[in-house]
């Protein structure tokens, strides 16, 4: 995991500020370049496995219009550097309040005042772009969301900031899940016994149900709930499982355009917005277990048409159309199976939820588990 060591950010920051200062001394207009994080600058190579940044850069020139933005960035950078120096960790909201506090006590800084948190969040993101780093590199962490993990075989060793280590045997947690943190580089994974696979379930609730019904007891596996669009923690955690345990990863979620593009694609190959982070936050080996279009017929699953008046679903279909034309991930021949699913969704305008497996035999609580295992064994995934 390539999170930068604590001393690297202060060094990079100093270099950046020094460059700015040198240009200013010469009355030369400083221009700062950042990687353009958008789909038109995304490249995909199946050998790499995730979306990588192209050559396009966004230039930020210091002029009258950008001087406020730049001043705010330097002001926030100072707060962050102080944090790194002292080992302090904060959320974006906490940083917003810290900046307010600084301004409150120094009237000269009044023009920098943030109107709301969106403004200070934008400034933090701008610093990340300038330094080409993650917010976690700046000791600015998001609230952990998703990634509750269950396993009878997995043991996690965490190195704490003070150097101590904590060993968590997931098999001893009962029905309590282990939740990965945003700094996966501090975690070491070990399998007590052989682990066959890792199953990532889109719905956290369904993941809980599977565990409660004994999935992890019957199958040596890791079961994880993604809780919708995967957070950085979930993405990093999947990458860690893939790299350290070398086991197959399967994703089980709804059959719809949103899941395919926003959840599965992000998990497998990262996103266009996080081009510079995809190398550390994507698990290219993860496979799409379903629901597959063929499952609907095979298991007689309950599906339903995409509602014309549902703005989110209609938008997702439109986005799917764009993705087929512009997204290098879906354009790659190796991902033909996924592209075919998108085409099927666009053509049939139907969707099927993961919970539809519960319709197959409502009286058998293990039915979804049986179907999942049947699919894994038969290699019915994409």
């Amino acid at each position, binding site marked *: 995991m390539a999170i930068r060591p604590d001393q690297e950010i202060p060094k990079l920051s100093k270099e950046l500020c020094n460059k700015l200062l040198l240009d*200013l001394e010469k009355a030369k207009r400083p221009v700062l370049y950042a990687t353009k994080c958008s789909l038109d600058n995304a490249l995909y190579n199946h050998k790499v496995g995730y979306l990588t940044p192209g050559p396009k850069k966004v230039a930020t020139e210091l002029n009258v219009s950008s001087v406020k933005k730049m001043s705010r960035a*330097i002001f926030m950078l100072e707060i962050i550097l102080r944090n790194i120096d002292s080992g302090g960790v904060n959320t974006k909201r906490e940083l917003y309040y810290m900046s307010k506090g600084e301004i409150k006590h120094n009237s000269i800084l009044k023009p920098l005042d943030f109107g709301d948190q969106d403004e200070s969040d934008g400034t933090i993101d701008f610093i990340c772009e300038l330094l080409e780093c993650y917010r976690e590199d700046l000791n600015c962490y998001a609230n952990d969301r998703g990634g509750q993990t269950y396993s009878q075989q997995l043991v996690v060793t965490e190195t704490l900031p003070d150097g101590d280590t904590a060993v968590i045997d997931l098999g001893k947690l009962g029905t309590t899940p282990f939740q990965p943190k945003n700094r996966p580089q501090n975690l070491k994974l070990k399998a007590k016994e052989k682990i066959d696979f890792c199953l990532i379930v889109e719905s956290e609730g369904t993941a809980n149900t599977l565990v409660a019904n004994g999935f992890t007891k019957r199958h040596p596996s890791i079961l994880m709930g993604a809780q919708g669009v995967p957070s950085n923690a979930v993405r990093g955690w999947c990458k860690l499982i893939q790299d350290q345990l070398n086991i197959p990863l399967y994703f089980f979620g709804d059959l719809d355009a949103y899941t395919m593009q926003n959840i599965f694609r992000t998990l497998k190959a990262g996103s266009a917005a996080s081009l510079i982070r995809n190398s550390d936050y994507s698990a290219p080996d993860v496979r799409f277990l379903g629901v597959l279009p063929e499952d609907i017929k095979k298991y007689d699953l309950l599906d339903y048409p995409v509602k014309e008046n549902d703005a989110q679903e209609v938008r997702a279909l439109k986005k799917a159309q764009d993705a087929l034309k512009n997204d290098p991930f879906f354009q790659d021949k190796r991902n033909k199976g996924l592209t075919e699913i998108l085409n099927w969704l666009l053509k049939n305008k139907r969707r099927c939820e993961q919970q539809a497996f519960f319709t197959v035999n409502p009286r058998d609580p293990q039915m979804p588990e049986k179907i999942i295992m049947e699919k894994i064994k038969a290699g019915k995934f994409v």
Partner: protein
Amino acid sequence: MVKKADSKAAAKKAAPKASSTPSAKGGAASETKGAKASPKSAGSAAKKTADADTDAPVRASKASKSITTSSTAEYFSKNLQQVGFSSQVKAVLTTLKEAVDNALDACEEHGFLPEVEIWVEKIGAGSLKNSDQVRIRVLDNGPGIDPDDVPKVFGEYLASSKFGRGRCSRGQQGIGISAATTWAQLTNATGARVITKTPKMRKAMSCTVEVDIKHNKGVLKDREMIEWDRENGTSVEFVIDGRIQLNGEAGLINYLTGTTLVNPHLTLHSNLPDLGRQTVERVTQEIPAIPEAVEPHPHTMKLGEFIAHSHLFGRVKVGAWLKKGFSRVNEGTLKDLVKAGIKASLLEKSVDGMNEVEFKDLFTKIQNIQLMAPSTKSVLSIGEEALAKSIKRLGAVDFFAVVTRKPTICDFKPVEVEVAVARLEDRAMEADAPVQVLRFANRVPLQFDKAACAIVQALTSVNWRAYGISQPKEALPQGPYIIAVSVVSPFIKFKNASKETVDASDELVEEIRRALIQAGQRLSKHIRKEDKANDLEEKLRHIEQFCPILVDGLCRITEASEARKKRAEDGLVKLLGRDTRVAEQELAHAHVSLEKMTAAENADPSLAGTKKGSGKKNAEKKKSSKKEAVAAE
């Protein structure tokens, strides 16, 4: 229709002799009566039919006796609501409006620069319920009225020197002022008090004019010759029942504001309740050149009008009548008519010898011949320059744009549209309120029935948001603006006789819309310029505020020396200064040209209209558009 046909049949059955009644009206009346009688006789139809045969002549003669002819005055006296006297408030406004219109028309026609003084005051309780007795007096410096014409002007309906003559004037039919006299007579038992003096008269004539409602004639009372302290002019005074409303769209102040706006050559002294004597000086010394009346265009007429028009010419040849009596008819048109099947001999025939069939044939053929569009020479516009000067009289205005469109043909009638958009300085006051709309038809403010008016429909159809003015969907724009739209035409299509609304034909709405769009574009240019100035101010403020903060921050992070800090500060100021310099120069340039323009305006008042939105370019454009108009002629 079915009922009428049935009644006709019944009447024929019941009274076959009645059909020989010579009068068409009588015939129709007897039919109606027959129809009324028929339901009663439904029970025993045969017997009644026999009775009807014997009673019919008696009934027919009774029916014809009950038909009476009323005078025009009698009609209007019973229907004053049709001519603007439908409410107490309207009565005051209409009376004042008619008197002022007449004063202005008279002055312009005789080449006088109008100076009008008005008095409106409450003098007691009115005779009608919930009304006041209001005295309205209008005094002008016009040519005066010949004593013989006074009863016609103030006491006779449809006695007008302006009716259908094809010229732009405020008054058209000769109804308004006589209606005011009638209202005064009906509510206060006394007519209009008139004092008038022409330059030729040694003394002024003072009299009371009343309408002889039975005979539609003006009657003079208390006539006497008096000494008057002026060379010429007319004073007319009405005491009527009504209610004075000063503010609001239908208020007197709005009316006077509008009147002064579209009459830049008018000096107006007003004496309104609680406001004392107020004077609005004229802003131009030029009396509008009254265009000559234009002969009617054959395509704008109906057959009846066509025949009636021939009666004005008497014993002239048809060809000569067509050429003389109509616009856009020439020798070529006559040849076309012959080609279309009119006998050449008919054109040589005397007009008064033509029969109805010949008239109809000639009329039909001429309708199918291509003629040039009617002339636009007859429209009388205010002009961009004059409007630009006048708009400043509206109050503290910080920006205006005026647009005068080239005269054009709408619905086969020459029309010219002028638009003035002004922004009030006191902006915060009316930010969310709709803009103030001033509508004018032939330079008369229109104050009622806004929604149906062509002007308002055109206004709401324009997307004002594109020009930086907020506007709810399909509604009037909002903000501290006054939008004045003036439509001038010798033949304005009003929706009613009280001239409150201009009929919204598609062509006219489109023409007004175009003028508004032009004004909107000029306005948006100005707003953008303002934004630029604001932007520059913000840029300058940014340099002052952020330069030290940015450099301080950079120096703290890099632990730079004081010397580096100083150099960086200087460099940054230099750098950002470059950005603002261009904008600063632009702004300074704009200021200089504005000052130059103001100086030129002070030195030569005729240039005044070229300021800001109207611009010198527009004046030139106007000139060129005039040239184009002449060329089109």
